[in-house]
């Protein structure tokens, strides 16, 4: 036994000694590693921050302002607006996020009373389109002139005119749908095609080329349960081919668009009916090229920024139709601080503020911006494509459906059903369109929803399918 104890003591000593030695050695190693790596990167980032501070220093104070907004309502986003985005504005802004109902009620009440507390409004195009005819919004044409150097696309300004010769809001932020492509697919682009200015014909040819070369259908659409495929029809395919959404729904031009999809479909991944967010099949490489909402492609670009390119959507005979979710800034007629309100709008559309907005709350700029180093590569990729798409010479914004109230779901169903019958079930296009047209018209009549861009103005009456 005693013999044993001696051995144990000796062993313990050896173990402790080796542990101590071991503890010493790695310390030396880690120190070396720390010295080597990220210092240079940190320097780069601080440089970028400096440029922003330089531009926004303005030596005036615009006093107190109340900004009512239906956008950026979640608490975290509202806090970002107050603490970060507005930090450099020379004035005190009270940012009040508000639900759509109370938002409209409050402005209507203030305008009726002829006395207001709100100075600036932030909302979606659809909100403003009902407020301008009610005489609640100022004409901002003069402000528009002074913001000419911002580079806000004409397409957006036109939409902000709400079918008049006045300008009722200043475009502020956008979200939209783009195309994401795996770089492996680029070598199959049709000859002579510019990947940033594709046509639908080229897009289909591209899908066919990939199919012929790989034997697989590698193009995808979000046709699953939660997928946003109906937006592709409402804001992209139908307007690009027919120049309208509702008025031209059943015409020959729209039929040509559906015919295109029928021709394209053999090269679309057959599992598309299970896809909700295209980022997943893109990352698993089930699919190489896909159309979807920027928020639903983001993971692909963020996870593998080197594998993917972000592209503008294809163009049809009537233009590069795309569905922007446009948020704008307006001034109610009862504003108390005109100079402050205009200065705030000018501040929010500065490229630097727009980049900060993108970084903090994820809405894309409406102006042309240089993306500094601190914006993640994925967001940068998406942002550049969004800007290219909105700024392309043939851009044709097709807005979110408006004025449908509770019938928005039925409206989407018309397009979904049309797709199911024509593309999946192979029914005759003209017959299906003629039948669905009746359903669509019933929805428009029931809600009395006037036409929205790019359909021509219906003068406040229910939009009519031709």
């Amino acid at each position, binding site marked *: 036994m005693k013999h044993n104890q001696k051995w144990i003591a000796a062993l313990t000593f050896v173990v402790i000694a080796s542990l101590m030695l071991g503890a010493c050695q790695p310390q030396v190693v880690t120190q070396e590693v720390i010295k080597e790596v990220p210092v240079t990167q940190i320097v780069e980032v601080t440089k970028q921050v400096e440029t922003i501070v330089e531009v926004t220093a303005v030596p005036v104070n615009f006093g107190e302002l109340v900004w009512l907004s239906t956008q950026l309502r979640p608490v975290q986003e509202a806090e970002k607006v107050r603490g970060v985005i507005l930090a450099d504005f020379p004035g005190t802004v009270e940012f009040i996020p508000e639900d759509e109902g109370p938002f409209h009620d409050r402005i209507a009440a203030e305008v009726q009373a002829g006395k207001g507390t709100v100075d600036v409004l932030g909302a979606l195009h659809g909100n403003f389109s009902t407020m301008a005819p009610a005489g609640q919004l100022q004409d901002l044409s003069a402000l528009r002139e002074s913001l000419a150097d911002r580079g806000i696309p004409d397409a957006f300004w036109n939409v902000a005119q709400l079918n008049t010769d006045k300008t009722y809001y200043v475009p502020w932020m956008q979200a939209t749908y783009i195309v994401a492509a795996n770089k492996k697919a680029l070598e199959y682009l049709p000859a002579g095609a510019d990947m940033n200015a594709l046509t639908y014909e080229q897009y289909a040819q591209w899908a066919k080329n990939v199919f012929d070369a790989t034997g697989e259908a590698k193009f995808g659409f979000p046709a*699953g*349960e939660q997928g946003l495929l109906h937006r592709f029809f409402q804001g992209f395919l139908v307007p690009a081919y027919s120049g309208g959404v509702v008025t031209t729904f059943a015409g020959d031009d729209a039929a040509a668009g559906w015919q295109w999809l029928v021709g394209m479909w053999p090269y679309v991944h057959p599992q598309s*009916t*299970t896809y909700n967010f295209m980022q997943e099949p893109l990352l*698993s490489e089930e699919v190489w090229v896909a159309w979807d909402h920027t928020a639903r492609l983001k993971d692909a670009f963020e996870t593998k920024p080197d594998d993917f390119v972000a592209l503008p959507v294809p163009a049809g005979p009537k233009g590069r139709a795309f569905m922007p979710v446009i948020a704008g800034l307006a001034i109610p007629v009862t504003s108390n601080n005109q100079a402050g309100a205009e200065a705030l709008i000018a501040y929010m559309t500065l490229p630097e503020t727009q980049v900060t907005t993108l970084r903090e709350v994820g809405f894309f700029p409406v102006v042309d911006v240089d993306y500094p180093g601190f914006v993640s590569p994925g967001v940068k990729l998406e942002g550049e494509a969004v800007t290219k798409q909105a700024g392309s010479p043939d851009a044709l914004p097709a807005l979110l459906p408006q004025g449908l109230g509770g019938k*928005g*779901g039925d409206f989407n169903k018309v397009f979904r*059903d049309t797709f199911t019958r024509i593309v*999946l079930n192979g029914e005759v296009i003209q017959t299906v369109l003629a039948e669905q047209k009746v359903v669509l018209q019933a929805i428009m009549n029931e809600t009395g929803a006037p036409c929205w861009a790019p359909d021509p103005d219906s003068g406040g009456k229910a939009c009519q399918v031709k």
Partner: protein
Amino acid sequence: MTSRRWRQLTPYLLLLPSVIFLLIFFAYPMVEAFALAFRAEEGGWTLKHFQTMVKDVAFAPAFRTTLLLILIIIPVQFVLALVMALLVQAKLKFSGLFLYIYAIPLGISELAAGIVWFALFTDRGYINTALTGLGILDKPFIFLSYQNTGWLLFAVVLAEAWRATSIIMVILVAGLQSIPSEFLEAADVFGATLWDKVWRVILPLLRPSLQVALILRTILALQVFAVALAVAGRGITLLAAEAYRWYGSYRNPNVAAAFAALIMLLSIASTALYLWGLRTPEEQVR
């Protein structure tokens, strides 16, 4: 009141809370939902929502697929469940362990089960990866294609069988345990084979349990929804999925209620059919 009166009333008083609970949270919403299917927007009653339902593009395929699913899934599940129940009852080594393993899917939510099976069957999923890895396939086989409703249905049946067979097994095990062992011993004495015992002793005595299990299973199969949605997306459609779409996506609660009412009528009809078809003959009632 006398203590005897009290004793007579006690069971009803004890039942009262659950009855009130069921009336408020089950019966009332059910009646309301049923009425919703017949209520016109401008007031009064209408059959318009049922017309919309029947005329809908998705109605016929949804109806067909739901019936097909029931026709396939119930026999498959009952054979499987009976085998499983007999295995558990056979008192083999580790038969207790079988029971626990079989019960695992019961603890997994319908949607989670659907997602698991989707991960198996999808283009770049486990099955395709394994098959291409072994060199059996050159490129992934697309099981979950809308062009391929056979495979879609197969995947849904498989997922649903995996998930819900053990419910039936549990009921059948309980039924088997109530069969007196003398009956089976007597059968052994007369030299009955295993097949004879199953066919002539076990199944007839299992009839009440089978009836319960069939009713439960058919009603649940009419409501199959999350599994199909997760596995097949919009590739195939079912009545319950259409009800969900009309309520959630198309925001038309009336037509959704019409679908729900149809599902309820089918449930009641199938229950009545089972009660009548599998009724226990008089002489067996003890």
